[in-house]
């Protein structure tokens, strides 16, 4: 794990305020995975069950079609694979 340089008390907003909304986008949780979801477009019927259930909003949609996963955020929980009615998502071991 890389050593993050944290800011000092004079450099952060007072009172624990977070002034920029939606900053969790900058927080990489993709490193937490031990299994990784692989999307198979051929089997996918674009029912969006995976998109509905994903707790991290990591299912990428483009032009009404599921096009893959945001691996920067995806924690590899496997909910998407579990709910997929056509087994279009497969959990494979994360190779590191």
């Amino acid at each position, binding site marked *: 794990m890389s050593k993050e340089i*944290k*800011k*000092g*008390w004079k450099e*952060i907003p*007072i*009172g*624990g*305020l*977070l*002034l*920029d*909304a939606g900053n969790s986008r900058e927080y990489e949780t993709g490193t937490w995975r031990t299994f990784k979801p692989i999307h198979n477009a051929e089997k996918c019927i674009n029912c969006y069950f995976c998109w509905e259930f994903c707790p991290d909003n990591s299912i990428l949609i483009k032009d009404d079609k599921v096009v893959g996963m945001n691996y920067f955020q995806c924690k590899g929980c496997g909910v998407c694979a579990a709910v997929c009615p056509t087994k279009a998502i497969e959990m494979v071991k994360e190779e590191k």
Partner: protein
Amino acid sequence: MTTKYEALTGAEAAALAMKQINPDVVAVYPITPQTPIVMKFSEYVANGEVDTEMVRVESEHSAMSATVGAAGAGARAMTATAANGLALMWEIVYIAASTRLPIVMGLVNRALSGPINIHCDHSDSMGARDSGWIQIYSENAQEVYDNYFMALRIAEHKDVLLPVMVCQDGFITSHSVENVLPLEDAQVKKFIGKKNFKGLLTSEKPYTIGPLDLQDYYMEHKMQQHDAMKHVIPVIEKIQKEYAETFDRKYEIIEEYRTDDADMVIVGMSSVMGTVKDVIDMMREEGIKVGAVKPRLFRPFPAEKIKNVLSKFKAIIILDRSDSFGSFPPLYGEILASFFAAEKKPYIKSFIHGLGGRDTNVEMIKEVISELQKLRDTGESNFTIDYLGVR
């Protein structure tokens, strides 16, 4: 400026000050002896004399929560409570301070039971002395009134941004009619100015208040609070000076009474000090050179100032209106600590008085002065703690 005195109780003076401040939000729950503040302010709201959104909550926990919510969203928000009410809002009291919200709260000092008691002592606010709030103590209704406006300016000052408790003695001040010289609405408006908004919380400019703050940043935020408290005393001095220049009403962080040629003093806070001043005048007629020192600010504690003021005397007795069971009573303990590094130390003794509204009368203050004389002459009772007027 108006020169017409009005007959107001301390609670009415507080409500009038709140009316003239005209805060955006007031969330309160009534509790004896703070109730008349709520009653009077509700009347102003019902009569349309203020623009305030008054939130009639179901408990003090909610009162402070709603006040925090409003202040967090950028509103000028106020509340008031006493004793068990303060106890019920406890966790949010800390959150208000650590979230750096410039809330002004009227605190009508009452014994924090038990056995159950509704009368004055300082056990409620003294319990909250480490909550991160600024605490100002008022001697009479006039001080209560004036303190509100200064408190607001202190709380909202960019170098401070901390909540302030304006304390007054339950019943003794809150329910006693006294002469109060009010300011005109326009004068108050000009003095307090517009709130220095960081911006209202809107969908265009969102921000997060009160997020989880763990090992990585919590201490940095505490350091900020620690540092903010250091700015308070110079800010108060500046604001008190401005208040004196604008309205010809002079207040000091530490008020001295007939100390010029005194070799011994009584130190205490709030309403008892009025009585002390009168008894000092009596004793002076008998040639006893005694004075009084009244800290108006307890948090942050003006340690350096108190040391400088008190080191002039041979003996001091400190009156505390609360106990710290198993330790030093609050004001006494702070003063002891202030003197630790001093080269010249007076004899020092503590009296705990007036618990649960016990009348601290003229005879008791005379007794304190006779103890002071003994302390000055013999030093025998140095570092002792006693209850005044206990059977």
